[in-house]
């Protein structure tokens, strides 16, 4: 199971992030009120049960039907107290669900029964899971999710299969990881060390083994790690290009660039059959039917795996609908990272230096093992 016995549980659970510091005062504030309320009820009950127990010779009781004033009192008082819980709770929740704009982004993918992380610079790590259930390569890559001390990091999640939940008790944070949809949260660790990651949403046979580790390192070490130096995550760390670069390779392999050709190619006799993707990310896209959608991660993902969902104004549906079965969630993250990176004039058209498309004849037959490719 998980490493290390950390001894008996402390009175106040380990705090290791900004959110944990926001959680604790609120938790103990509610604890104080509710304990007081509970003790009040218990005290009144005990007092009544002792003082008004049936005594010989005194069984006659007064006819008391109620009191509007008391009803009002114990309706309004709890409500006001509850509303302070509400207001404080909103404040904490608001912080938890809105990542700072400038935080670097890490992708985490949940699947039965492991967590996979991808960093913008291409590092990939298995945060944890059930080793019996992994490929040999994944088993080699089991490590920890590396996060920098005192610096916010945005984490975007998606699931490959069922609903999972990425819970980090020491950070007092939790988020359901849903198939087909990106959800984001953010962490700003305040303590060095290793912390539990639990899958908190029941996900099948080895749900309880879908656990992993977060490792918080000093910011400088984190920067070095992102540059490909040092093995902070505790697993082999082959950085073979950034996520966007991997995305470019997929883009070429999947032959996206035969239809989504760059502006530069227009007028060279080539005909664009699909919208230009340069500078697309973050723009408002007019959709047939008169609506506009902000081109964010979710939009791009939907446009790749379910192209018929939204057709861009001025274009016809031409894209094959089977990319969802060809592209893994990890590859989608790479593709989206590439499309995010595309600025006007930066997209390469198809040329002789492109990565060969899936199914293209290779020089040596044994290298032709592209996963999910059209065979």
């Amino acid at each position, binding site marked *: 199971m998980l490493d290390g016995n950390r001894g008996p549980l402390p009175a106040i659970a380990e705090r290791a992030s900004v959110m944990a510091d926001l959680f604790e005062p609120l938790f103990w504030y509610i604890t104080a009120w509710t304990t007081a309320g509970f003790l009040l009820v218990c005290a009144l009950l005990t007092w009544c049960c002792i003082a008004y127990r*049936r005594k010989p010779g005194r*069984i006659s009781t007064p006819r008391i039907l109620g009191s*509007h004033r008391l009803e009002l009192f114990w309706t309004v008082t709890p409500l006001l107290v509850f509303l302070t819980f*509400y207001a404080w709770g909103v404040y904490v929740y608001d912080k938890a669900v809105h990542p700072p704009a400038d935080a670097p982004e890490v992708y985490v993918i949940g699947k039965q029964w492991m967590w996979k992380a991808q960093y913008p610079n291409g590092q990939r790590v298995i945060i944890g899971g059930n080793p019996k259930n992994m490929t040999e390569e994944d088993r080699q890559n089991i490590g920890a999710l590396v996060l920098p001390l005192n610096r916010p990091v945005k984490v975007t999640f998606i699931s490959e299969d*069922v609903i999972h939940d990425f819970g980090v008790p020491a950070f007092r944070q939790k988020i359901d990881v849903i198939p087909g949809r990106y959800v984001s949260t953010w962490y700003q660790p305040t303590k060095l060390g290793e912390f539990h990651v639990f899958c908190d949403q029941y996900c099948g046979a080895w*749900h309880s083994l879908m656990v992993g580790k977060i490792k918080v390192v000093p910011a400088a070490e984190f920067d070095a790690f992102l540059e490909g130096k040092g093995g902070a995550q505790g697993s082999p760390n082959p950085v073979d290009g950034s996520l966007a670069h991997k995305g470019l390779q997929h883009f070429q392999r999947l032959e996206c660039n035969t239809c989504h050709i760059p502006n530069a190619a227009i007028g060279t006799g080539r005909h664009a059959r699909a919208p230009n993707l340069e500078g697309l990310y973050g723009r408002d896209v007019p959709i047939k039917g008169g609506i506009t959608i902000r081109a964010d991660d979710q939009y791009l993902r939907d446009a790749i795996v379910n192209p018929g969902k939204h057709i861009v104004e001025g274009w016809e549906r031409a894209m094959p609908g089977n990319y969802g079965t060809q592209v893994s969630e990890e590859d989608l993250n790479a593709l989206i990272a590439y499309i995010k990176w595309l600025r006007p004039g930066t997209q390469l058209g198809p040329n002789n230096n492109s990565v060969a498309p899936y199914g293209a004849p290779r020089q040596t037959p044994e290298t032709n093992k592209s996963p999910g490719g059209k065979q």
Partner: protein
Amino acid sequence: MSIVIGDTPRTAPPPPEPETPRRNYLNETSGFWSWALTVDHKRIGILYLVSITAFFLVGGIAAGLVRANLLTPNGAILTEDQYNKAFTAHGVVMLFLFLIPSIPAVFGNFLVPLMIGAKDLAFPRLNLASWYVFMIGAAFMVWGLLSGGIDTGWTLYPPYSSRYSHASVAPGVFGVFITGFSSIMTGLNIMVTVHKMRAPGMTWGRLPLFIWAMYATSFIQLLGTPVVAITLLLLLVERLAGVGIFDPSIGGDPVLYQHLFWFYSHPAVYIMIVPGMGVVSEVLTCFSRKNIFGYKAVAWSSVGIAVVGFLVWAHHMFVAGISYYSALLFSFLTMLVAVPSAIKVFNWVATLYRGSITFQAPMMFTLAFLVLFTVGGVTGMFLATMGTDIHLHDTYFVVAHFHFVMVGGMVLAYLAGIHFWWPKMTGRMYSDFWSKTSATVIFVGFFFTFVPQFVLGYHGMPRRYPNYPEEFQVYNVLSTAGASILGVGYLMPAVYLTLSLFFGPKASANPWSATGLEWQVPSPPTVFNFEYLPITVCGPYEYAIGVDQMGRGLPEPPGAGDDNPATRVGATLLPGPQPKETEVVG
């Protein structure tokens, strides 16, 4: 200063103890078919009682397996797969086959006509059909549990339940779907009965609070259950026919399922607690010899819970991918729904004020209810508050919270009800000593079982984990130890109540000196309940004046016979109506 004045009852001398008739609903007819084809609401109540007791045993065994397995960090006795099936069996059986039918189907059936002065429910055949439908649904569920088990958790979230699980989800889901109809039938029956069949004088303002609670519950059953039925049907369509409804890989939306599921299943927790609140109001007034404090507040808070309870479902989903603004709204509405429960607790406590309290088993269970339900209620605030729910969601904190409400609340109220109405249902009294002991043992065992789980949840131990970090072991062992005590506590009533059927002393018509109409008929009642048309002349809890709802005096209250005869002097001990002014407090 506001003064609340109730009905001024017309009074009459206490009735003579009615002669126990030779024939009652239990011995009027006999043989298998007399039970299998009965349309007597009391016999159907007994059928439900026997069935759900069996299911409680099944669910309890599953709980025992779960707790035993959690003794060690890597699972003491079960594999992961077996553990998943055990906790799912525990949840499905306890919720759908015990808690939802518990008070509504057992006491609702048995008592609603008796309490409002009717001969039966409005639709006796529908009532019998509801039991058969329930048993058919239960058979499907048991089939699912035996033919490979269900490993999805009782919440059945897709796409796991619709696509990835290899267990026998379909029969189990179909069983839940079917039992839903039984719940609708019971709710409809009770609602119509309360509307149309009240005896003369039984106005809405004189209804016992148990009837108000049952009425509010029926409202939830009628409006909520169809939604879960549709949801489960959609789930089955997706699982069996592959139509994309909830699974995103075929075009569905998994969060949609959660909305639909909780739209029923949150109100369903009120199906499980509001009837218990009704029982508490009955028992508390009787054993403190007081009018209920704030009748209208207690009655309308039941209705308030039923209505607002429909608007809070998404508080189960604060971290499940709902929008920020809907989370804000649902947290706010959840704060509102907590208020009626608080109102009830304060009114119950105020009812004890200046009472003459005795501590027979029904009262012991009710006092335990008050303490445990209060814990369950206040710990709900941590989960209604979004900032704390982010961490506590799906941990043992939630498990402990809802067990305090469902078990500490509903099961104890159910046991209070069983002990309160047992003499009426069976005509026998049970052991005073053992029943009090059982209430104490259950209360202590319960605390030991679930308080450690709050600590575990606060430290982040997730639900549904057979493997857990070693630092959590101490609290899990404590919890399992408590569960063993709780198990012993549950077995005790099974023994002494069964023994009472054969060896218990015969019960009088009104052994607790209670005011409700159900106590004005013999124990056990005759087939058609009332030999005459009961005319209600006053509200339900005129203990201070000492009259029942028909305006007749009450017999001596329980425990009075224990007094030293030397001290039994003075008018205060005379049974029967006592002229008394309404007093005002606050």
